[in-house]
């Protein structure tokens, strides 16, 4: 198993390099640092001196790939590519445009992001699976039919509507929870209720329907017929056999997102004013702070790959037939 994990990590390296090359070419080749400087300083009435100064302050004045004027290894290391892209591998994200350390920001903002994303994920999973099991249990009845209709209707509603509607109903009309904001410690709970609720509800449509199809597919298999033929009750068939066997497809979709939870949700966090990574990213996008966006892209892909490896490991836990060699 350890061998397998090491191999997977090594396999992840070329992928991360690929991600790096994509972001590097997006940020530095498509548009030169000069273009970026001009946009930042305002397109009109920008002096060449100001552009040079802007680039110097942020270290964009170096050559892109090869610094022929530098001695020795500095030929390669004293370039934008090395400075801005290779250093990401060591999780050295550098400074944001406002001069703050990106790594520090990420560390402090991870907590609030997780405080929302984790409950949404766990509660959501529990809700969707139980709704789906219920619909699969009562399959081919009106309960199932209207359940699916409700799911389709709910997944046709924009997620923005759930947020705005939730804020309007719970905060503005009923005054139950604050409309947005964040507190520390136990005080955070009252700020978290609404975003978590909205997060869970907005996913019910697609979530429950997705798991329902998984369960229905399992129910059509031969072992279920055998179980029924043995005389097991439908209840037992559903919860003992179908649920356990559906774990593989469930894990495939669920485990991969666990690490990405750290990234938080862009929309939710910015709507509810939560100082997490999602709102950090959205602020960076709006103020065109490219070093932050680049750092977040890299972090996101690292976490995604971690998620893929975790998924493979989790398979061995639920299915003894699978061994990672």
């Amino acid at each position, binding site marked *: 198993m350890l061998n397998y994990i090491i191999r997977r990590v090594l396999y992840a390296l*070329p*992928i991360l390099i*690929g*991600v790096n090359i*994509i*972001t590097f070419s*997006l*940020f530095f080749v*498509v*548009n030169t640092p000069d*273009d*970026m400087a*001009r*946009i930042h300083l305002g*397109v009109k009435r920008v002096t060449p001196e100001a552009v040079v100064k802007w680039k110097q302050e942020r270290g964009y004045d170096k050559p892109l790939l090869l610094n022929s004027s530098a001695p020795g290894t500095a030929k390669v290391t004293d370039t934008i590519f090395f400075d801005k892209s290779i250093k990401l591998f060591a999780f050295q994200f550098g400074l944001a445009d406002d001069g703050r350390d990106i790594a520090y920001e990420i560390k402090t903002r991870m907590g609030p992001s997780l405080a929302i994303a984790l409950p949404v994920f766990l509660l959501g999973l529990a809700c969707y699976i139980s709704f789906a099991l219920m619909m699969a249990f009562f*399959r*081919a*009845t*009106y309960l*199932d*039919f209207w359940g*699916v209709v409700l799911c*389709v*209707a709910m*997944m*046709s*509603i*924009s*997620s*923005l*509507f759930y947020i*705005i509607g939730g*804020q*309007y109903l719970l905060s503005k009309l009923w005054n139950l929870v604050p409309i947005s904001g964040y507190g520390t410690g136990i005080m955070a709970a009252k700020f978290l209720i609404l975003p978590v609720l909205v997060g869970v509800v907005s996913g019910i449509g697609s979530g429950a329907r997705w798991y329902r*199809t998984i369960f*229905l*597919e399992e129910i*059509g298999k031969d072992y279920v017929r055998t179980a029924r033929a043995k005389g097991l009750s439908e209840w037992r068939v559903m919860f003992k056999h179908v649920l356990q066997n559906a774990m593989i497809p469930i894990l495939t979709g669920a485990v991969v997102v666990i690490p*990405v939870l750290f*990234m938080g949700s*862009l*929309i939710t966090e*910015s709507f509810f004013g939560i100082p997490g990574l999602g709102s950090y*990213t*959205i602020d960076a*996008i*709006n103020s*065109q702070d*490219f070093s932050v*966006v*680049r750092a*977040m*892209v890299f972090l*996101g*892909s690292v976490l*995604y*790959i971690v998620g893929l490896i975790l998924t493979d490991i989790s398979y061995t836990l639920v299915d003894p037939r699978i061994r990672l060699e």
Partner: protein
Amino acid sequence: MVFSFKPIILWTDALIAVLLLAGLVYGWTVLRHEHLRAPWKKVIRNTSGLVSMIVLTVFLVIGLLDTLHFRPAMEIQKNGERAYAVEVLSLLDLIVAPLRRHTEKTYSAPLSTHLFSKETIELADGRQVRTYPRLVYGGAHLKNPNQDRKSDIAKRGAFGLILALVFWCLAGSVLIGILARRRKIGLASCLKGVLRRQEEIPWNAALWTLLGLLLLAVPTIVLSLKYHIFGTDKVGQDVLYLALKSIRTGLVIGTLTTLVMLPFAVLLGIMAGYFQGWIDDIIQYVYTTLNSIPAVLLIAAAVLMTQVYMDSHPELFETASARADLRLLFLCLILGVTSWTGLCRLMRGESLKLREMEYIQAAQAFGVSDFRIIVRHILPNVMHIVLIAIVMDFSGLVLAEAVLSYVGVGVDPSMISFGTMINSARLEMAREPMVWWSLAAAFGFMFLLVLFANLFSDAVRDAFDPRVQTRAVRLQIFKKRLKPLEQETQP
């Protein structure tokens, strides 16, 4: 005066034309082949399939009307040349010209006759009063708005409803007439057959859908001639007009994105599955890499970069709408890049399976070239997956547009879309009393579009995917005819 104009073909217009042409060619091929026709017949016989098809056609017609762009001519200049307006209009703008021209000063509530905010007005005798000013167009025909407004709206609404019923009766009798003539039966028995659902195609559902659409549309048209039926937005534009214009943006995002990604996904996926070896490795590497970047961030990064590029090259665009249009196209491209990986993986898996089939091996033994095998033998057998993917992606993309526009990496702010509508309305959330109509209209239209797209994609999947069992389940419910157990287990 002869109406003269200069036709403008924006990038997305051209691509939509290509898409339409491809659709027509596909439709023509389907009509000529019985085996291709069969699943589409299934879609039409499915009640929700037929209903959603009708509703989506309405959206499609609005979107297509909004795709024919031109620049209207202004008066002839001194040197004899004709100058054209800077603004690019579409056929839809012409049809709903009253809606476009009737702009008020700022917010006004749906069907109201006064502005939403108080202003200082100077009366005829020189006194100044702070009050809600009358709207320039909304309910301008009323002499005494406070008294007459409700009865006038009710009158016009009722007129619209009656008109809708008349249209419906006309359309229904035409349909029944055609059906009766084709079946060579009497009108009465044909009507009975339709209403009792004895026809193969659920014509009764089609008729009810038509009734629903007419009941919504005709009163809306009648009322919107004299009122702002969904109110006006911050700069006084009619919200109904904005919502109608948004439909095209949504449709473009939903369809062009798949069109853009389709060739890559299908070709690369099939190549990976068919050739295997190092080709497979490279293609898998490419899609894993793209997949591992969080989609929103990749889109954000790419859109930011195109924005910088466009800002630093303003000379490339003749008009503001050409600029907005190119940004829309880029958004489609980028969305396509992030979303092709799923289809590519499906294609790879399917062609891995297909290449082991006897008929492919036979073709290989006969010395048929790889290219020919892929085009002639593999491609037609994966097309149903492609079709399912296209219709399934559509609704997600329409929803994604709104979210991306909110994040600030969606369409150009000057382009009318559901996202920009929601975004600008959101800023007024805190206002007391709330300005809700813009949001409601955007969400309502988007909900209808996405809901029927979802229903349609379900119907298509049921018809095209041999594995899906949900259809059988659904039919059982509708027919309430549970077969005896023995019969079910028999092959």
